[in-house]
């Protein structure tokens, strides 16, 4: 009995949990709770509240004050109670119903805990397995085809490597002829003639060379604008 008395409020989910514990400990009939006894024991437990956060403490204190209220009503002479329109027995009944309902959910929680335990023992695979869409075509023969085709190509053809350089002086000559013919050309158009980035760079260098030689002038509205190459000839 002393073990059961030594309770810590923080071990309980809330005041209803503590109340059920007290009823169980005193071997009381939940349908016929001696309010006075329970109220006193409950208040005693709440007095021990120390290291408990305010919000949880508030729930316990609220229950304690309700129990004290209920206890005082129970002590009223029946005559006065009737005059004041209070039926202590009905309040006690509602209180019991509330405890019984809570007791039901508390038991369901225990049942859920069991179900959790057993359900977790059935292991599942969280990720689904995907099927490769290319399943049918990805057989080893596809590899063989890729490889041996490459090998055959290598045997049949002698690859000629084209030297990939652009001669600046040739480009200068080409552009000079172009400017003589067209008189003025926007840089954009030259860019569109160039077949690669490298060629575009060489075009730009060629234009600079022609400016230096005073063959052309360059006109530009403002920074980063497109510019016009104008032939001086």
């Amino acid at each position: 009995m002393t073990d059961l008395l030594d309770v810590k409020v923080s071990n309980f989910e809330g005041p209803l949990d503590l109340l059920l514990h007290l009823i169980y400990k005193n071997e009381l009939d939940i349908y016929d709770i001696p309010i006075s006894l329970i109220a006193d024991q409950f208040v005693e437990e709440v007095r021990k509240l120390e290291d408990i956060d305010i919000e949880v403490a508030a729930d316990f204190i609220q229950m304690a004050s309700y129990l004290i209220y209920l206890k005082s009503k129970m002590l009223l002479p029946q005559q006065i109670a009737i005059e004041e329109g209070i039926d202590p027995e009905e309040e006690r009944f509602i209180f019991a119903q509330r405890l019984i309902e809570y007791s039901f959910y508390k038991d369901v929680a225990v049942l859920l805990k069991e179900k959790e335990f057993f359900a977790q023992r059935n292991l599942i695979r969280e990720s689904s397995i995907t099927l490769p869409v290319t399943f049918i075509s990805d057989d080893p023969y596809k590899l063989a085809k890729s490889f041996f085709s490459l090998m055959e190509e290598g045997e049949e053809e002698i690859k000629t490597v084209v030297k990939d350089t652009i001669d600046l002086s040739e480009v200068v000559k080409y552009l000079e002829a172009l400017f003589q013919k067209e008189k003025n050309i926007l840089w954009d158009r030259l860019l569109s003639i160039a077949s690669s980035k490298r060629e575009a760079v060489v075009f730009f260098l060629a234009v600079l060379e022609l400016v230096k030689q005073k063959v052309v002038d360059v006109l530009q509205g403002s920074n980063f604008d497109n510019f016009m190459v104008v032939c001086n000839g």
Partner: protein
Amino acid sequence: MDNERQLFYATLFLSGKLVSIDFFRKIFDPINLENRLIDYAELFNNLNLGIQIRRVADGYQMVTLSELYDNLVKFFGDKGENLTKSMLETLAVIAYKQPITRVEVDEVRGVNSSAAIRSLLDRNFIKVGGRKDVPGRPLLYVTTNSFLEYFGMVDLSDLPSFREWQEMKG
């Protein structure tokens, strides 16, 4: 073996997750389908392969036998944390009284349930199922299929009714 049965097993194997009966209704002849699926699951489970088909929530799921848990959990145990006492209690109240507001849960439990409800929402065991038509229009909570799946239940009738519980208590 007929093709439908093989496809049922193959689908559950590939998915790993719960596959709803609705899914099978779309790919198989829906007439009398549920009875056939129950048969297929039973035939499979009778083979006792260490793998099982369990009926859960709104569908079926392929899982390993619970007897093998201790051997397998070392390599494949990647479970989330177990639910706390206050989460279980809150879930119990919501399961029976859904749709229910947070304040109504608080009243039944006698304590504030905000933290528990938040955790349950995070774990996808409950979801918001509308608002209650009272001043303030508070949110209403309902349980999800993930809740049933997690506890290995087909539906809420797997839990005892209040009357059954009272009789049990004597």
